[in-house]
């Protein structure tokens, strides 16, 4: 079973306790009134689908109930790291995007 380190509980818990809640670090446009349909569509629907490392939001729903962020490898399913919401994503120089 896949174990995920919850940055709030500070313990490794079974994947069953968690939910994936999509891509991380996507901010809602601050002023929707002046946002074009294209920009709003981009915010709602356009997501990267990388082969390799991706920053995702996860929810420890059957645990502490908190959202946090994780860097996961979509090929191997390895959780590279997890960190609290609001913290910047850790630098990953070896996996930098071209």
């Amino acid at each position, binding site marked *: 079973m896949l174990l995920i380190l919850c940055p*709030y509980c*500070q313990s490794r818990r079974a994947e069953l*306790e968690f939910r994936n809640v999509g891509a991380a670090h996507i901010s809602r446009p601050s002023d929707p009134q002046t946002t074009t349909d294209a920009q709003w569509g981009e915010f709602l629907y356009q997501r990267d689908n990388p082969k390799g490392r991706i920053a995702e939001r996860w929810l420890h729903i*059957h645990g*502490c*109930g908190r959202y946090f962020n994780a860097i996961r490898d979509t090929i191997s399913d390895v959780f590279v790291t997890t960190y609290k919401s609001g913290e910047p994503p850790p630098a990953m120089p070896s996996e930098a995007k071209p």
Partner: protein
Amino acid sequence: MPDSATMLTNAPPLARFVLRADAETTIKAGAVYGLDLPLTINQGASKGERGKPGARVALKLGPDEFWLIVPEAEGAGVRALLDTALAGCVCALVDVSHRQVGFVLSGPDAATLLSSGCPLDFDLRAFPLGMATRSVFDKIEFMVWRMAQDVFRIEVARSFGPYFEAMIAEARHDLV
């Protein structure tokens, strides 16, 4: 053979509250509650005897989430005390007395029975005395708190109570 000393019993009627509060408010709440709320996440604290007058339980299940459990008859009084003490504080106090049912699983096979449905490691080194956390048991969410080496307090949503009892009974058969 399953050890006949291992028993699943119902907790007595209880009043339950969920308190969401920051550290400062937590200290205020502890002062009137008569029991300091745990500082560490996934920890439980208690005083008195379960269901008996004056018994108090405080479980920290999230970074700012506490469950306060007291005898049913004292629920209204505790709520009034907390309401007064926490007036003006940014916090939430919700009565969830009837949302859940409580169980006590005790005896030499208690940890083994829990392991039949829960992915947590119930070895004392991984799940020490006083640890309390939400997790999953078969297909339901539950809260498990280790009160002694062989004594676990469990809370599940009311409608899942019969399911939990049935799954523990099923697990007992596997021990034969």
